[in-house]
């Protein structure tokens, strides 16, 4: 089926109830495909694990992790092996959970940030963890044997609240985005020290307000960011240059998608087959893809589909499943999670 014909519809499969406050974030377990599984976290201070029933195909809550975080759980991330789940909380800690025979046990608590931890991310190898906070710092933790985590570096550079950290999908390069309107790129210099190698700000065609999230395409040579300035921006780099040498090739602005969402865009996720999903405070979810029409001027992106009133309130997180079908989960201030399938028009 051709993506570019636009003959797609968004099917609402199921609404998941359980959280008693806004749902902030979702993370699919990258290693669980049968049955597929994801985690969600909420202002109700809990983390929930959801699983699809192989027979009925419907989703149910498999586990509730409570009484560990004492404040909002803002984000969650699975290790690449799917064995560990990290959760970041406004209580200034990051908890590490291990799946022990279907039960999730808190095996480690990472302390160090001065106040709210807002995001947590594993590198591709599962050897490094990054966290960020309102305290303006980004911490890199080394994963040691026996569920020990050792702080390898405290990165200072952002002038405000750091909203999200994300590792490059294949390389050990870290990206952070902030209330200071910038995206920073961090790399290790070969001696164990981490440095900011690039700052993408308004002067580089960057965002003019808080940058809330970022996501990479499958090849890792493009990145999309979303912002309170109501735009999505696409950035690109020369990935072969980074892979071949120690020279950190810069990222440059490719294009800006504006005039779509009309309130803060909180979440963006790029699927492996190239569809960008975005969720915003206008309660809508939108889908974009690279347009083949305008190759003369370089690549451009077009709106594929939009769903107004996807939720009753703000959409905080949109995440594609790692599986084959175009399955998307969305989380909202309305306390629900919705499951969607982007399917061919029948």
């Amino acid at each position, binding site marked *: 089926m051709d993506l570019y014909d636009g003959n797609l519809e968004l099917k609402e499969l199921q609404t998941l109830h359980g959280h008693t406050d806004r749902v902030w974030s979702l993370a699919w377990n990258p290693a669980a495909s049968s049955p597929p599984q994801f985690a969600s976290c909420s202002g109700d201070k809990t983390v929930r694990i959801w699983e699809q029933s192989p027979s009925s195909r419907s989703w149910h809550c498999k586990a509730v992790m409570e009484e560990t975080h004492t*404040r909002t759980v803002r984000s969650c991330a699975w290790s690449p092996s799917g064995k560990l789940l990290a959760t970041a909380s406004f209580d200034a800690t990051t908890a590490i959970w291990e799946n022990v025979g279907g039960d999730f046990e808190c095996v480690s608590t990472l302390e160090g940030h001065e106040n*709210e931890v807002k995001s947590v991310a594993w590198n591709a190898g599962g050897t490094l963890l990054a966290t960020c906070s309102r305290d303006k710092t980004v911490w890199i933790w080394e994963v040691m044997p026996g569920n020990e985590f050792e702080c390898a570096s405290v990165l200072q550079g952002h002038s405000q609240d750091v909203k999200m950290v994300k590792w490059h999908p294949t390389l050990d390069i870290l990206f952070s985005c902030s209330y200071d309107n910038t995206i920073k790129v961090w790399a290790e210099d070969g001696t164990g020290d981490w440095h900011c190698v690039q700052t993408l700000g308004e002067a580089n065609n960057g965002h003019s307000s*808080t940058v809330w999230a970022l996501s990479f395409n499958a090849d890792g040579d493009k990145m999309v960011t979303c912002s309170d300035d109501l735009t999505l921006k696409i950035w690109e780099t020369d990935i072969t240059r980074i892979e071949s040498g120690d020279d950190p090739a810069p990222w440059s602005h490719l294009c800006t998608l504006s005039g779509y969402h009309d309130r803060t865009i909180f979440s963006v996720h790029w699927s492996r087959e190239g569809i960008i999903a975005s969720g915003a405070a206008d309660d809508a979810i939108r889908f974009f893809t690279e347009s083949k029409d305008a190759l003369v001027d370089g690549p451009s992106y077009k709106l594929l589909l939009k769903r107004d009133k996807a939720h009753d*309130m703000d959409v905080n997180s949109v995440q594609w499943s790692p599986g084959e079908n175009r399955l998307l989960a969305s989380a909202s201030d309305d306390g629900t999670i919705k499951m969607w399938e982007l399917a061919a028009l029948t």
Partner: protein
Amino acid sequence: MTLGLINANPVVHAKKERVARTEDPHSDDAVDPLEIYDYVRDIRDPEHPYSLEQLSVLSEESITVDDKLGRILITFTPTIQHCSMATVIGLCLRVKLQECFPPHYKVDIKVAPGSHADEESVNKQLNDKERVAAALENPNLRQLVDECLYSKEL
């Protein structure tokens, strides 16, 4: 406030007469500025035993509503340009509106143009829902907000 008041001598205005509203405010879904004003006018100032209305921080004209789009905008005027209580007042307004109106309303809260020295940063903070959520989980701030909302000492 043991360290002295930020604005020691505020100008206090008379409360405006209440308009007796005959219809039940919940009889239809439409929201108008006066209905919102009735909910927020008696919020107590964080520093003084006076309401936001008495200190002219708010008036009915501070509120605009687009009922079709479900948008509410409140523009308030701090009593002085360097008011460090501006964010607390903003939090009070946000909490009060969350309590009184259906959750699908989109609420924007701003200080009136030119009324605050750090206008841009106050507005940004008040409209960052993550910062607002975190602030309201802070026990000291929450207590301050609750005192302004529920105190009867006017």
